[in-house]
């Protein structure tokens, strides 16, 4: 398979967008998915629990030093940055916010790109800031596949538009087409 992992960044409106994607994936979807959803630092881990209940995939909040496994979906814990290590494990950091965000999409995308290079898919979804734009650009430059939710299909189009500015070669897809696109890649 050409691709080894998927990273997703989403912000305002992300809960519904992520739900559309996660529920739209085949139940034997193999590629590991790692997600940064901007979320209040004080929130608990309800999102991972919720997605895990409604999806056949294993959805969980990422633990430090956890190996990335196929068939699993990992969410960054509130108030921690999520990074990918060279040995394909996950690590956490409490360093300063990046783009006013912790977790930051840029940090996840950048470190994932170092590890998977052209075997990585990066997806930017709905949001009201510009986190993830430069990370997505890095993924594309390393030969990975950059996908952006079309601004028209986004609850808040600012993040997709900012990613399009940074990464003009990215594939623009309406939200509802993204899961099928990924399902085809997974075959």
């Amino acid at each position, binding site marked *: 398979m050409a691709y080894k992992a998927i990273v997703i960044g989403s912000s305002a409106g992300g809960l519904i967008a992520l739900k559309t994607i996660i529920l739209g994936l085949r139940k034997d979807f193999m590629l590991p998915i790692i997600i940064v959803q901007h979320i209040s630092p004080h929130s608990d881990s309800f999102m991972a629990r919720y997605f895990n209940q409604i999806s056949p995939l294993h959805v969980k909040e990422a633990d*430090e030093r956890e190996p990335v496994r196929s068939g699993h979906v990992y969410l960054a814990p509130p108030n921690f940055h999520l990074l990918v290590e060279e040995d394909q494990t996950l690590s956490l950091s409490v360093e300063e916010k990046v783009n006013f965000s912790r977790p930051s999409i840029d940090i996840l995308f950048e470190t994932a790109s170092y590890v998977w290079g052209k075997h990585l898919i990066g997806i930017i979804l709905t949001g009201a800031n510009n986190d993830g734009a430069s990370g997505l650009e890095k993924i594309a430059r390393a030969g990975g596949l950059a996908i952006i939710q079309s601004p028209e299909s986004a609850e808040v189009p600012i993040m997709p538009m900012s990613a399009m500015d940074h990464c003009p070669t990215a594939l623009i897809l309406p939200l509802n087409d993204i899961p099928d696109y990924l399902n085809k890649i997974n075959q």
Partner: protein
Amino acid sequence: MIQNDEHDQNKANLTQNIEIELFIEAIFRCHGYDFRNYNKAHIKRRLLFRLSALGLKSISELQHKVLHEADFFDIVLKDLSINVTEMYRDPSFYAGLRKEVVPLLKTYPFIKIWHAGCATGEEVYSFAILLKEEGLYDRAQIYATDFNPLVLETAKKGIYPINRIKEYTSNYQMAGGLNSFSDYYFARYDAVIFNQDLKKNIVFAEHNLATDSVFAEVNLIICRNVLIYFNKELQNKVIRLFTDSLTKGGFLGLGSKENLMFTEMVDQYVVIDAKEKIYKKKVSDNKYGL
């Protein structure tokens, strides 16, 4: 064309990884700081950030600087040690200590406490206030250590920017604070200065968890958001150091995403509060640890 570009990118990435290993070796041999068992992704980000801030092209150039320029290592150490902290980070952790650990500490005539990786000291003052309110401060000896001497200077002063005090006050209340938070500091211009008497029993000292050894026998160790930067091997080594430093029945408090259960020393402890990551070193080897 695009193919070549990709190829170059991936090759540059591999070269960078080699350079980072050499860089880490260089600072260990030249400055004694051992980052060899730290998570690399975060180190790489930090070094690349420094690289672009200085307008340099390769990590080898950084290595040259760190070997030949006397002051440059201070900057590198600052880059590599994430010193971000706050007062009563995770208020429920402090509430947990108050409820589950303090009652036992009260049964001792004298207690020793170690904050490992205390950064600029906010965590230390937070807990010192709690000890005061519980009537434990006067019989406590507090060690607050970090491997970065610059943050310890700030910690010793106990002066912090005033703009975060609102957040800290609400954290203090959620942590079960008994008084008015403003009793413990006075405001001056854009800073707050914590009361001198909070410092009386605190010793701030340099200590490197990766390379230094046991320096005291203590009843409670608080080490939060430090182990997340270490690989498994170093995590195990540090937990061993903690186990050797704790009295029988002594307590260990870790960060909210750190877990003793994944380390080699798990058998030596009982879980006091799984969510708040509070553990107790067993008193004896029987299966109840009592």
